[in-house]
């Protein structure tokens, strides 16, 4: 479990995160959403120990990630948005590097590479950006880590690969793992992320499960405009509207609409979910 308490971080005099308190539980795939520059990547790099918190603390299984202890590094993997093209064959790179993660399974790496239709015998510095990303995704999933942090993992992936990515995440991550995926491509990951974390400038606007969201908000895909709609979007042949769920009805959560609703009614949503 990851516990974040009063976390703050600044780049020089520019504050990025301010007093963030939340916890990330095991067995969940968190979707980390937010506008450009709100600190999604910063939060991910703080979670995996690449940056030191300005104040406050992060505690992962009782350890601070910035201590970079082997015992914690063995349990986590961070996939950055930009990955390094190494002058090695993918299978050699994975085998040699994987030896440092006790749960790394080379067979799983090769299997995911095959599912991605990616050639493991190809040199990584000769791969396209998408192929390189798929190699790192395959490696990350094959490490069997409990904590997996991914920054824009679907960037650069072609359409079939996005579906393969979703399938691989569901299939190859341990049940008790905590996965945090930062993304702008919510539609790519809509079906797998739960809960959703929405970051605003320096703050967490929402950290709630899909079940909790659908309990409190109703996503109406009808043809008539509702007066109580917090957010409305025209769709072909009707509207997508987000309203307070006063009747306890069930609906399918649309994450993009949720994001826009949260941003349009920050205080209302915070009050609604912090009750």
């Amino acid at each position: 479990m990851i516990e974040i308490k009063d976390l703050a971080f600044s780049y020089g005099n520019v504050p990025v995160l301010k007093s963030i308190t939340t916890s990330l539980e095991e067995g969940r795939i968190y979707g980390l959403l937010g506008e450009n520059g709100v600190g999604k990547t910063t939060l991910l790099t703080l979670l995996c120990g690449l940056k030191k918190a300005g104040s406050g603390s992060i505690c992962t299984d009782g350890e601070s990630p910035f201590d970079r202890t082997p015992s914690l590094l063995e349990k986590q993997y961070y996939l950055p948005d930009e990955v390094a093209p190494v002058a090695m064959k993918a299978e050699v790179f994975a085998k040699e590097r994987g030896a440092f993660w006790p749960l790394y399974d080379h067979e799983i790496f090769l299997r995911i590479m095959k599912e991605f239709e990616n050639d493991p015998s190809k040199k990584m510095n000769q791969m396209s950006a998408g192929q390189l990303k798929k190699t790192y995704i395959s490696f990350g999933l094959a490490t069997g880590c409990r904590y997996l942090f991914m920054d824009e993992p679907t960037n650069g992936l072609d359409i079939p690969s996005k579906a393969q990515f979703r399938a691989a995440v569901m299939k190859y991550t341990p049940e008790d793992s905590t996965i945090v995926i930062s993304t702008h491509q919510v539609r790519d990951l809509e079906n797998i992320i739960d809960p959703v974390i929405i970051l605003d400038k320096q703050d967490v606007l929402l950290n709630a499960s899909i079940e909790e969201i659908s309990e409190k908000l109703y996503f109406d895909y009808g043809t008539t405009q509702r007066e109580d709609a917090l957010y409305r979007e025209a769709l072909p042949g009707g509207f997508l509207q987000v309203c307070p769920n006063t009747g306890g009805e069930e609906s399918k959560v649309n994450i993009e609409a949720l994001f826009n609703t949260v941003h349009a009614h920050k205080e209302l949503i915070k009050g609604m979910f912090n009750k």
Partner: protein
Amino acid sequence: MNNTFNFKRFGKYLAYDLKSVWEEQRVFLLTYALIPVITYIVIVFFALVGHGFSMDFSDYTLARPSIAVRVSVFSLVSVIFLIFFPSRTYGFITDKAKGSAWIQLPASRLEKFSSMMLICLVIIPVAFFCAYLISDALVCLVDKNCGSSIFSSWNSLDMTSYDEDGKSFKIAGKGIWFLANGVLQIVSVFLLGALTFKKNKVAKTILTLFVISLVLSAIIGLAVSTIDIESFSDKIQAWALNYADNIDFWANFWSNVELAVIVVGLGIWSWFRVKNIQH
């Protein structure tokens, strides 16, 4: 689990690190190490093309690999190699993508740092000198005008100084020590530069050294201007006479202290840089 230092994990990491360095730097290392062969081939080529053509520079004739030419080339190539290899080998640590991957590898900071120091201060310089000497030996096998080996030539150098009475004392004995001293100092400085600067690592390190030497010269100049030089030099002379029998020992002692302070100081600085680097 020992999170500070585990010998088994260190061995595994060192092997991984060495292999990565070899994969990335072998062409660079071998190119520099093969300079005697390359130079010799170029000289022979020009000699053949020019029908006995030789390049004369005062006392040196480059038409044949004399010991003077070989030692000069060796010194120049070694200095250039030692200046550039730390940034080529570990400069990636300041790069966002590669540096992040390095930090995330499950080994302790001390293990990664120890491996880096061992590779930079010992393994690569030794491998380079061995490869260079083999390359030089190959030239000497072909051309009998070589003279003695570079190694024995360096080893026979002694850093002897003479005082006014003609008495001599040796600073740190043999030239091989002088070579090791130079290697440790150059590599320590340029490794720290590689870990500190994000771009133009070598140029910025040289510029920093230049600024530091200017500042130190100014400080020393100011300090000297405030003291009575004559009485100070009398004191030094008196001290030297007092310890005349042990002057070799003291000269060596202070040289070693200077080396230790520089290398350990730069090592500690590099350690804190590696320990606290953020991406």
